[in-house]
Every structure is written in structure tokens, then in C-alpha cells.
């Protein structure tokens, strides 16, 4: 019953798709028009995912299907100004290397790129599609089959703006590049749906840090973010990637991250999930070449009736690759978290070193975690470990703090903070660490200074 019901919901998007198609027909290459049509057809057939599908077993998106989201197809006015409302979302280290999007639409006037070298290409995806130099690259990305689910198909059908980012060969960027996605919810009955699409090309031996953050000026604004971020790392490229999801508590956040790692490249990702009433993050790291390494870490912290779901795939397809994964979760109230982490070690991927850990801290009896680390190994000379833990505050640790005069409530909070720190303290951008420290402490309703 549920699945048929869900399949019908896409009709709401049909009008948007027709509108969008008319609006940009003249503007877009024909290959993209047919790609969009195929994608939309896919979406119409499959609808939004439902809980009968294994990959969506614990995450029910009926609320997204039923809400009357209106896809954002053009830039509307925004309440934000460059000096005003934006300031609190800007990281000092990336003040002049920030690219700002409002409801998925790139905003040049809110962005600043003076700290970026001239040869770094950072342009609205719309512009890249019109560029003879980059159209072929963009096409390659877009035609690369994305995840076979309704959200991804809908993004391809409806994305209007986004970013094409190229870090040239041999360049090391000092300033992190901040992609700031602002969600401005609508008060009335038709909340906006944003479909940002990002492509990052890290050329040979380049090195950069990318911050992808999601935030909202209002704590309760309702909107949907449905984002796809593609990253490709060429030979020897190094990329630090921080995804900071602090959407409004009324928002829905669905995002896909895909990273393809070239020979001897290094990809380090930390995904933070604090916001949104419902969030789902699919992260796929494909290691198609020898000698690549990645760390894929994350921290989710949810409370109340929040729901957060991480599905991760780390695919070792060639020998001599390393992947380390640490995901931690803190759950309070009646919140719920899902962690599904697959690590594949394909036939012939000898000398693979893969480690995966998922640890969860339950602060209330009403919270629930479904965790499923999955290791599938088809090679025989590998070093692989994985594990998952769900637990409460350690009583010996708590007693130790109490025995120094710290009251039980504060002791619990310090231990919770410490639990989160294992992920936060590794983040290489100080402003992010400070922001997250403060967010964790705020969530715990305590005050003490962050890492000294």
C-alpha cells in the first residue's frame, strides 16, 4: 500500500519539471535535456524510496513525499546580505574563499573568492554547462550513473544551479574553500526544495580543503535540501572534505557524496550531522586505482524526534589501498540513527587495509540506533577490521570525574563531549572545531572552554 501511495506523490513534481524544461530548453545542450527527461521518468516510475527497500528499511521518507515542496528553479530575493545575516555562517579561514548558495542557487554577490588563486575554476554549474572548455567534463560527471534512487534522479532532473570547481595540477590551496548552502524556509504551505549539484575536480598532485556546510537563518524553517556532490581526485591529489550539516530543525536533508580516488590520492572526509528533522547521507568512496587512501569519519548528534541515517560504501577495487572509518553517534530524547557501512574488498584488491568502527552513545532510553557494519571481502591477503558499539556512559569514567568534585550531571556531559571530541579534534580548520565544540556543549546545556 505504502509503495503505491508513494509512487503517486511525484505528480507534484511533474509541474515543476515541465516548468523547468520550458524555462531552460533554449539554454541547455540537448544531451542534458534528454538526461533530465530520463531521470525524471526514473523518478516517476520509482517514486521516493520506501521502507520495503533494504537501503531504506529504517528511514521512512513519507513525510518528504507528502509535503508540498516547491522546487526552486530561479533565484529569488534573499533576506541575507553580505555583511548582515551571513556573518555567523562564515568560517574565518575561508572568509575570502567562500561560495554561497541560497536554496541551491549560486549567489555571486554573497560569495568572495579573492583568496583563491586565479587558475582555480569555481563557477556556477549553469555557466560551466555553457562553457566550451568545461562542458565535456560536466557531461561526463552528469552522465555517470548516480545512485538508483528517487532522490538522486530528482536532483538530476531538477537541479538548476550548483558549482563546478577545479583545482589545477600541482596547486596547494592554503585557504579552505567553503561551499555554504543556506536554506531559507518558507512560512507558508509551499516550502522550497533545493537541488544543489556540485562537481569537484582535483587535478594531479593538487591539495585542498573543502568545507560543505548547510545552515539556515531560522531554527524552524521548513525546506528540503537534496544535494549531490561529486569529487574526483586525480593521481596524487589530496582532498580534505568537511560536510557540516546544521540545517534548521524543521528541514529535511538528503545528500549524496561520491568520491573517486585516483592512484596514490588521499581523501579525508568528516561528515557532521547535527541538524534537520530528517537527514540521510549516502557517501560512496570508490578506490579504482592502486595506492589510494581515505579516511571517512563522521559524527551525528540528535535529540527530540530527529532522525539521521548514514549509508556509506567504501569500495576497494584495486590493491594497496587504505580506508579508515570512524563514525560516532550521540542520541538523546526519542531520536533515531541509522548507520549502514559497507566495505567491499574486490577480487584482486590485495594488501587492502580497511578499518571501520561505529560507536554510539545513548543518553536516553527512548533513543534508538540501527547499526550495520558490513565487510565483504573477495581477496585473501588483506587486513580488515570492523565493529559497532552501542552503549551508555561508562560508570568508571563517571565516578572518576565525580571523585574530583564534579557533579553527576556535569560529569555525564563532559564524557559525552569527550566522546564527540574524538571526531571533532581531528578537524583541521579551527573555526569548525570551535563551532562544533560550542554546538555540542550547547546541546548538552553546559559551558566550559573548548580544547585549550
Amino acid at each position, binding site marked *: 500500500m505504502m509503495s503505491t501511495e508513494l509512487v503517486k506523490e511525484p505528480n507534484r513534481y511533474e509541474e515543476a519539471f515541465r516548468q523547468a524544461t520550458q524555462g531552460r530548453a533554449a539554454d541547455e545542450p540537448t544531451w542534458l535535456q534528454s538526461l533530465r527527461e530520463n531521470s525524471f521518468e526514473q523518478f516517476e516510475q520509482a517514486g521516493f524510496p520506501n521502507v520495503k527497500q533494504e537501503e531504506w528499511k529504517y528511514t521512512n521518507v513519507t513525510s518528504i513525499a507528502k509535503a508540498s515542496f516547491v522546487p526552486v528553479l530561479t533565484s529569488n530575493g534573499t533576506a541575507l546580505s553580505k555583511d548582515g545575516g551571513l556573518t555567523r555562517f562564515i568560517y574565518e579561514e575561508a572568509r575570502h574563499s567562500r561560495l554561497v548558495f541560497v536554496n541551491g542557487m549560486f549567489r555571486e554577490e554573497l560569495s568572495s573568492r579573492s583568496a583563491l588563486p586565479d587558475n582555480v575554476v569555481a563557477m556556477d554549474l549553469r555557466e560551466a554547462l555553457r562553457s566550451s572548455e568545461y562542458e565535456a567534463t560536466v557531461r561526463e560527471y552528469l552522465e555517470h550513473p548516480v545512485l538508483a534512487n528517487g532522490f538522486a534522479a530528482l536532483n538530476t532532473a531538477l537541479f538548476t544551479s550548483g558549482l563546478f570547481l577545479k583545482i589545477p595540477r600541482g596547486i596547494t590551496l592554503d585557504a579552505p574553500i567553503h561551499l555554504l548552502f543556506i536554506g531559507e524556509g518558507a512560512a507558508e504551505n509551499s516550502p522550497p526544495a533545493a537541488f544543489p549539484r556540485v562537481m569537484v575536480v582535483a587535478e594531479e598532485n593538487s591539495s585542498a580543503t573543502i568545507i560543505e556546510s548547510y545552515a539556515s537563518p531560522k531554527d524552524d524553517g521548513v525546506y528540503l535540501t537534496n544535494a549531490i556532490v561529486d569529487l574526483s581526485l586525480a593521481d596524487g591529489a589530496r582532498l580534505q572534505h568537511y560536510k557540516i550539516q546544521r540545517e534548521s530543525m524543521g528541514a529535511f536533508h538528503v545528500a549524496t557524496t561520491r568520491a573517486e580516488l585516483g592512484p596514490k590520492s588521499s581523501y579525508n572526509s568528516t561528515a557532521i550531522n547535527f541538524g534537520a528533522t530528517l537527514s540521510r547521507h549516502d557517501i560512496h568512496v570508490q578506490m579504482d586505482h592502486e595506492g589510494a587512501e581515505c579516511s571517512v569519519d563522521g559524527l551525528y548528534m540528535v535529540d527530540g524526534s530527529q532522525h539521521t541515517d548514514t549509508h556509506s560504501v567504501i569500495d576497494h577495487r584495486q590493491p594497496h589501498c587504505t580506508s579508515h572509518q570512524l563514525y560516532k553517534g550521540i542520541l538523546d530524547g526519542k531520536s533515531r540513527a541509522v548507520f549502514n557501512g559497507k566495505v567491499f574488498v574486490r577480487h584482486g584488491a590485495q594488501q587492502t587495509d580497511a578499518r571501520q568502527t561505529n560507536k554510539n552513545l545513548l543518553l536516553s532510553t527512548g533513543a534508538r540506533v540501527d547499526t550495520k557494519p558490513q565487510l565483504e571481502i573477495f581477496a585473501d591477503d588483506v587486513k580488515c577490521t570492523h565493529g559497532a558499539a552501542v552503549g551508555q556512559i561508562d560508570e568508571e569514567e563517571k565516578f572518576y570525574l*565525580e*571523585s574530583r*568534585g564534579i557533579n553527576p550531571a556535569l560529569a555525564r556531559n*563532559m564524557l559525552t563531549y569527550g*566522546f564527540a571530541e574524538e571526531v571533532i579534534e581531528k578537524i583541521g580548520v579551527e573555526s569548525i572545531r570551535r563551532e562544533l565544540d560550542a554546538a555540542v556543549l550547547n546541546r548538552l546545556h553546559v559551558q566550559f572552554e573548548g*580544547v*585549550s
Partner: protein
Amino acid sequence: MLEIRNLHASVDGNEILKGINLKVNKGEVHAIMGPNGSGKSTLAKVLAGHPSYEVTAGEVLFDGKNLLEMTPDERAREGVFMAFQYPVEIPGVSNAQFLRLAYNEKQKHLGAEELDPLEFKDLLKEKAKLVEMEASFMSRSVNEGFSGGEKKRNEILQMAVLDPKLSVLDETDSGLDIDALRIVAEGVNKLHDPNKAVILVTHYQRLLNYITPDFVHVLSGGRIVKEGGKELALELEEKGYDWLKSANGKSATVAPQAG
């Protein structure tokens, strides 16, 4: 300062302490010795309020107040400190954060001035000299990745910062090499003054070469079976604990009660 009367305590239903009587006055250093399993560490943990230990009979007065009615954190703020035999690692919380928070909780309790991170840093620097700890330890997570000796020094640093009236050192000498033992012992000696008291819980006499006890109590089978001055420790060192077994059960008190 501390008066223990007929203290009985059990863990998981097994009675470990079977009627301890002990009086500790200001300025005194007491050593509690005894073979493994005699209940020495249990006594230390009961005084600190460890939740796994249940007091089934008896009472403990600290400065005239009922210590057993207080929660572990209240005891600490009142001035009771236990140095752990196995200090616990607290990942993600720095030593400096932890110590400042503990310090300020106590200051708050005493109605004294709380310190901000910068002010506290100065205080910590001063105290760290006492146990020869480098500044880098302060920004590291509490006890995480510390060697056995570093953990024990960190316990004494905490004692120095919290400035307790009564310090109970639970096997602080175990696992220490001779240099670390000297540093720890000198730290304890420097912190001692006529208004404070120390209880050393130890299996071996060697710590007592560095910290001279006023009284030695020998625990066996959950009872104090022998008491004396510092010379008793030497006698134990020489004869071992086996000769006490005959005395066990009679609970003969040959030396006068402390104080």
C-alpha cells in the same frame, strides 16, 4: 578529622570489610598495609564513595559530618581525595579542562574565587612543577596514552590542584620505577601540612622509605589485625604477611589507637 567506626562493606554481596575502626587526626600520615585481597583498596574506594561498594554497617565521620551520606562529588568538595590505583582515561577531555572544572566546582562550594582559563593556566603551571610534568600534558586528554608513571603523577597533580584535607592514596606506588616513585613521594610530602592528613594504602614498604607514616595499620581478611608505628612496616617487609595469619581472627590490637 576522620573517624571510621565498625565499617562493614560488600561488593556483589561478598563482605570485604568486616568491621574497620580507624581514627585519623590532622597532620597525621597513616599507612594501611596488608596482603592482596585484604580489603585495603576496598577501604579506599568506600571512602571515596565508589558506587559498586555497599556499606552494610558502621559509620564514617569526616570533620564531624556523616561521610557515607554524601555523594562522591560532595565528598571531594568537602576535601576528600582518592588517588586511584588505576587512573581512568577520559578521551576527548583535556587535562586542563578537567582540572579547571574540578577546581572551580570546589571554589564555588567554598564560596571562593573561580578562575578563568588563563588564570588557571598559571596555577596549573605552578602545580605541575611539583610532579615534574610538562605543559604538553595539560592539553592532552586525561590520562589517555599516559604511561603508568605519568598517570600516577597526574593523580598527584590533581591532588595538588584540589588541595584536599584528606588524601587517600590507593597503591600509588604500584607500577612506578624508582624515579617516578621519588617524584610522586616528594610531591606528597610537599603537599602535606599540619592541617591535612594522608592515608597511604600500599602492599609494599618501599613507598614508606620516602613518606614516613606516623601509624601503620595492617589489614587482613577485612579487619585491622595489627597496628603500630613506622617500624611495623619494616617488620612486615622482613617477615612478609604470613606470620600475621596466626593473629588473624583474634584481631589483636597491640599498638594504641591512632590519636
